[in-house]
């Protein structure tokens, strides 16, 4: 075999290429590690976002316009607009660690039972249903905060006929009352309403919810001035901030009780685990149907 000049050239090229190949392999490893780290971080973020899940229910929708303020402003439009603003506020602050789901994101029909079913499906920790009311009397800007109510006969009857769906909320009334109280405190502290009422009532769409569940109904006299106020983006942002304050105060209360800190590694508070056990021990109606 004759060692020619062209073989020498090939050998030189190979020798020169070795460091480049080593560098390339290193870069590739580094890139893979970075990707893995990024994915891990994203997964961690997802897990953190799932720490608390809030389902916001914009009342009414589709053919059901809800209350009408004047000739054109419908409750269904206001509820969706406020729900979106509340979602935007929460999503813009990752440190809040709250995943938000809306029961509807457009003007669509949504049956009453379906609203709680969506919250149950997402294993939500909180369910907040948003409504507006048009009151001739009393003509005050007011906020009504409702939690579900059951009569003793109703509980007995529902248990007897094994109507587990309507009984769901009966196991979470204490949490709902507490959630409602925090919303009430935030509304009172804001000074935005002349009257604030905290009420128990047999609200249909709260009964199937297997978590702390509250309905808020902001009530206004149907005056021209109020209609303009309700349509104002600034006013809706103000309302969203008030509700957010109530939600955050309630969740912080849980965090304090369980020594949970957002910066530490997350482990769900025992109370939340218990809530989920109660809920999913029975299965949601959707799951039962499937």
């Amino acid at each position, binding site marked *: 075999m004759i060692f020619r000049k062209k073989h020498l050239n090939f050998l030189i090229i190979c020798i020169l290429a070795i460091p480049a190949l080593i560098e390339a392999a290193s870069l590739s490893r580094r890139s893979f590690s970075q990707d893995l780290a990024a994915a891990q971080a994203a997964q961690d973020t997802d897990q953190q976002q799932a720490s608390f899940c809030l389902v916001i229910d914009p*009342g*009414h929708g589709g053919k*059901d316009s*809800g*209350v009408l303020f004047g000739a054109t402003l419908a*409750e269904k439009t206001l509820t969706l607009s406020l729900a979106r603003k509340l979602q935007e506020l929460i999503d813009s602050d990752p440190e809040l660690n709250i995943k938000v789901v809306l029961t509807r994101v457009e003007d669509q029909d949504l049956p*009453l039972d379906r609203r709680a079913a969506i919250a149950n499906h997402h294993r939500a920790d909180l369910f907040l249903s948003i*409504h*507006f*009311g*048009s*009151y*001739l*009397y*009393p003509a005050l800007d*007011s906020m*009504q905060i*409702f939690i579900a109510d059951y*009569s003793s*006969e*109703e509980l007995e009857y529902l248990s007897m006929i094994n109507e587990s769906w*309507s009984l769901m909320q009966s196991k979470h009334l204490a949490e709902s009352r507490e959630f409602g109280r925090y919303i009430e405190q935030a509304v009172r502290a804001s000074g935005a309403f002349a*009257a604030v*009422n*905290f*009420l*128990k*009532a*047999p*609200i*249909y*769409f709260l*009964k199937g919810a297997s978590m702390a569940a509250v*309905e808020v*109904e902001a*009530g206004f006299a149907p005056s021209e001035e109020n209609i303009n106020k309700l349509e104002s983006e600034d006013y809706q942002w103000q309302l969203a901030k008030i509700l957010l304050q109530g939600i955050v105060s309630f969740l912080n209360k849980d965090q304090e009780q369980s020594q949970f800190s957002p910066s530490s590694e997350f482990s769900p508070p025992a109370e939340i685990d218990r809530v989920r056990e109660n809920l999913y021990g029975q299965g949601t109606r959707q799951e039962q149907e499937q």
Partner: protein
Amino acid sequence: MKQFLIIMLALIIVGSGLWVWTELKNPRKLVSRNLLLSKILEENKQREEFFSVQLFFASKMGFSLGVETREVKGEKSSLQQQIRRALAELIKGPTQADLVSTIPVGTKLRGFYLDKNGIGYADFSNEMIKNHPGGSWGELITIYSVVNTVIKNFPQVRQVKLLINGLEVETLRGHLDLRRAFSFNESLLSQQP
């Protein structure tokens, strides 16, 4: 034979006529008849007597139900008739300036029934839904104005269930669960703290 029968028939007719005439002329029987007549009139008068009801309307001043007392003409003998009359007054609306009606315009009471367990069924026409302004507060105040009016005045009724056109409905306008019967609500009688 034929003549005999005609004579007998004529005698019976004349005899009966004489007996009736004698009876009517008897003063003792006349007093007794007058007493019976006055007794019937007295009973009718009692049936036309008024009874007092407390009607629960929405207060203009705050988030509560206010009471207006009204004298309602009614039959003492029928509880369900009295309840129907009381609810008819509730539908008419308040006369006091500080109260406001809770039943939508055009609503009619189709009936009121009471079962052996003390549950009353107030059956309203479709206007109760069609003309209702909606809202959780609005539905709450409408339902309890009916429930409190019935139970406060007629304690024989333990709970009240609302029907629309004779049927059970889920809600009035998408808020309060009407599948259940309602008890008297004390908390709505005064302003919330």
